[in-house]
């Protein structure tokens, strides 16, 4: 049986709705390993790959700080700049939703929409477990092709 067509498309839609409703610049969902899962809004000004890696590192560091003061983790991080601000919230224990916005007076709205979207994304992720047939990725053919690519890319001159 195939996995229903829900997942990244649904999450992108949730983030797009968030961008529209709260008037923010960008919304991203990233994994705790620092990989960008999906993005919505304007990303033209942003290196989203580097952003994902840095935010994941920042969030991990904050988790250590939380532990130092006896908390399991801080679920929200807010960075206030002069013109742009970042709201980061933990979603589904292992993902982070990053929202970049410009009008700081909207912080209440951003937090409200972030909480709602976070819950919706969490529900989608709970339904998105590994599809049947996923094991096919780690086949000998996959590995052989990957190894050939590695030899080609990292060849010494």
């Amino acid at each position: 049986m195939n996995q229903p067509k829900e997942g990244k498309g649904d999450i992108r839609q949730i983030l797009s709705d968030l961008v529209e409703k709260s008037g923010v610049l960008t919304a991203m969902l990233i994994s705790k390993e620092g990989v960008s899962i999906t993005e919505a809004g304007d990303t033209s000004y942003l290196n989203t790959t580097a952003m994902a890696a840095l935010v994941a590192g920042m969030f991990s560091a904050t988790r250590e700080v939380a532990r130092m003061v006896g908390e399991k983790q801080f679920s929200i991080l807010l960075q206030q700049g002069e013109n742009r601000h970042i709201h980061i919230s933990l979603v589904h224990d292992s993902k982070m939703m990053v929202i970049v916005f410009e009008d700081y007076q909207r912080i209440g709205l951003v937090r409200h929409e972030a909480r709602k979207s976070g819950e919706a994304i969490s529900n989608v992720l709970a339904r998105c477990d590994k599809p049947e047939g996923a094991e096919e990725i780690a086949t000998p053919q996959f590995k052989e092709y990957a190894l050939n690519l590695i030899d080609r890319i990292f060849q010494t001159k």
Partner: protein
Amino acid sequence: MPHINYQDKEISFKIVYYGPGMSGKTTNLMYIHSALDKERTGEIVILDTQEERTLFFDFFPLELGRIEGYSVRFNMYTVPGQVFYEASRRLILEGADGVVFVADSQKSRLEENIESFTMLQKSLSGFGVDWTRFPLVLQYNKRDLSDLLPLGTLEGQLGLNGLPIFEAVAVEGRGVMETIRTASRQVIEKFQL
């Protein structure tokens, strides 16, 4: 375990360069980044102090290509080497699919190498990883200097017989590509779901 996005058919592996302070981890990464085709790599992120020491981590993504319909990427990281950055190191190491241990070959750095490797073992064990089966490559860097540790010293002292080892002079690029090629191959060979 790599990060897999089944909907978009993307797989991301994480390779971490680990080792004592100033052993040449960032130099390895910068050489690889400069040597590869630009369309394969994203921008390199270097977070260091004024003394050229890595503060948090260095990072760049490498697109391997499309395999069996999946877009495969290696995310390459370094950790800060200095002892007091242990918390940062552990965070970056979390979720790693393979590690390159960059040792400083100078005899005077033997203790730092061993201390760093012991921390690596401890962190991996803390994540529930069986480090004896984990993709791991040892690089003896700075082989152009004098008063060097003979090859085999670290493996002997740490009980790491059978580990792939490479001699390198990372500032000149010597041994850098051989090291990453073997580490990447191990990551793929040991990859299972």
